[in-house]
């Protein structure tokens, strides 16, 4: 029990440091808000024009699609993280030696950090969600079940992405080109997570690729529940698949990290 309280205190302190970062960059938070509203306006009229020529794309109605693309657009930044830059920085500055010596699990600490960011991001996004409902005809589910299904799927998807990024960030141990690597990652993840186009609308070969990659677990799966594309009765199956990705990537991430540590070369410092 004492140990549990200790853990809570330690990780609670990590969690509490996250909002401080946001208040320090208030102008940037506002900027992101406006930029996202602009993007939503473009999305809305683009999709209206797409559906104006009639029919249902990929079996989705206009309403379902609008729900999906707006919510996906809002949630996409949630699965982004700066893990590879953190790694790169820690290696460059030699900070990693101190972080590894701390009496808490290195990966667990950074995961708590990522969860804190997710929570805060969700809070920051709340007004945007209201605007989406009021101005862009987005319809949110009214039953509690769907919301719960969504939240669990989001938490699982977020963790899947965290573990993928953990493995990916280990490349920083081998190469200093973290920026170039991250650009490629953003491009691939943005498309194959379903953040731009729902998986149903992709041609077969792109759909297959998306299903073989873990990214759809973090955007497509949770968003399709919230937007009414996937019924909440399919939740159990979706969660199991997410869990399988989570465990698989989780185990690999620990192994890869342990191996990479042997490669460690701190530059000067």
């Amino acid at each position, binding site marked *: 029990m004492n140990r549990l309280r200790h853990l809570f205190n330690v990780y609670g302190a990590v969690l509490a440091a996250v909002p401080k970062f946001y208040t320090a960059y208030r102008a940037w938070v506002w900027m992101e808000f406006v930029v996202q509203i*602009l993007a939503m306006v473009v999305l809305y*009229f683009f999709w209206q*024009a797409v559906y104006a020529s009639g029919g249902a794309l990929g079996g989705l109605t206009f309403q379902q699609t609008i729900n999906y693309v707006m919510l996906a657009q809002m949630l996409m930044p949630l699965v982004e993280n700066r893990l590879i830059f953190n790694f790169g920085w820690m290696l460059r500055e030699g900070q990693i030696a101190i972080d590894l010596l701390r009496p808490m699990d290195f990966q667990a600490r950074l995961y708590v950090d990522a969860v804190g960011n997710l929570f805060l991001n969700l809070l920051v996004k709340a007004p945007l969600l209201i605007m989406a409902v009021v101005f862009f005809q987005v319809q949110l589910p009214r039953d509690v079940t769907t919301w719960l299904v969504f939240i669990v799927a989001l938490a699982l998807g977020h963790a899947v992405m965290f573990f993928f990024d953990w493995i990916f960030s280990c490349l920083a141990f081998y190469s200093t080109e973290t920026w170039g690597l991250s650009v490629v990652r953003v491009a*691939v993840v943005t498309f194959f997570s379903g953040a*731009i186009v729902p998986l149903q609308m*992709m041609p077969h070969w792109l759909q297959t690729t998306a299903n073989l990659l873990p990214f759809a677990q973090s955007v497509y799966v949770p968003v399709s529940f919230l937007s009414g594309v996937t019924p909440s009765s399919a939740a159990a199956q979706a969660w199991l698949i997410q869990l399988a990705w989570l465990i698989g990537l989780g185990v690999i991430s620990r192994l890869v990290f342990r191996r990479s540590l042997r490669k460690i070369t701190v530059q000067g410092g």
Partner: protein
Amino acid sequence: MLRRYTSLYWFFLIQRFKILMEYRLNFFIGLTSTIFLQAAGLLGIWVIVSQVPDLNGWTLDQVLLIYGLLTLAKSINHMFADNLWVIGWGYVRPGGFDRFLVRPINPLFHLLADRFCHDGLGNFLVGAALVIVSSINLHLVWTPLNLLYLIVVVISGGVIFIALNLITATSAFWIIESIPVTQIVFNTHEFARFPLTIYPKAIQLFLTILIPYGFASYYPATQILGRDPGLLAWLPPFVALVLAVFSYRVWLFGLKHYGGTGS
């Protein structure tokens, strides 16, 4: 005067490339990064628009031509005026901007020439590829006159991008951190990726009169596609000129207020 500045720019460019060639891999990554970042969005547009007969009366290739023209204009801004983004934290805050003021050349010229941004080359390649591929698919005939029109409107579009960024970057003289302001105005260019007719009249007017990104993509594309937008087809160079003069006035006004950060 013009000759002096041209040769000066050349010197700056050679110095810049000497730095870039020290880190060849970085140069290559920067160049390809913008291509990658465009790819995700373009793949999305291709997936969707190729499934419908048309987007408000515009076929996929016509939409890609609009997108290509906008990307070319954007790349000019990206290559030659990227320093406008970082004027706040890169020059004004650390005091480096004072360096420009004591030199016998135009401070704005110095700021822009200080860093040619090679990442913009990637955008240029994407834009050029889009224009070439779409015009082949559309069987467009490039007479010398058409080609001249293309070059003029792409440069005009680039000037529109730069002038708008110059106006917003000038805010750095008061608030130092100008990036959020620049980002908000800059991002309205995303509207101009698509035919303006998909938007309500108010947004169309906004992109024609207030923040005229429409002249960097939609109106020239209508002309190239033979849809005859009338007078609007010939306005891009004039809009660019007026905006350039206006933005330079704003810049001079800001410069008068500049007092340094005391660092």
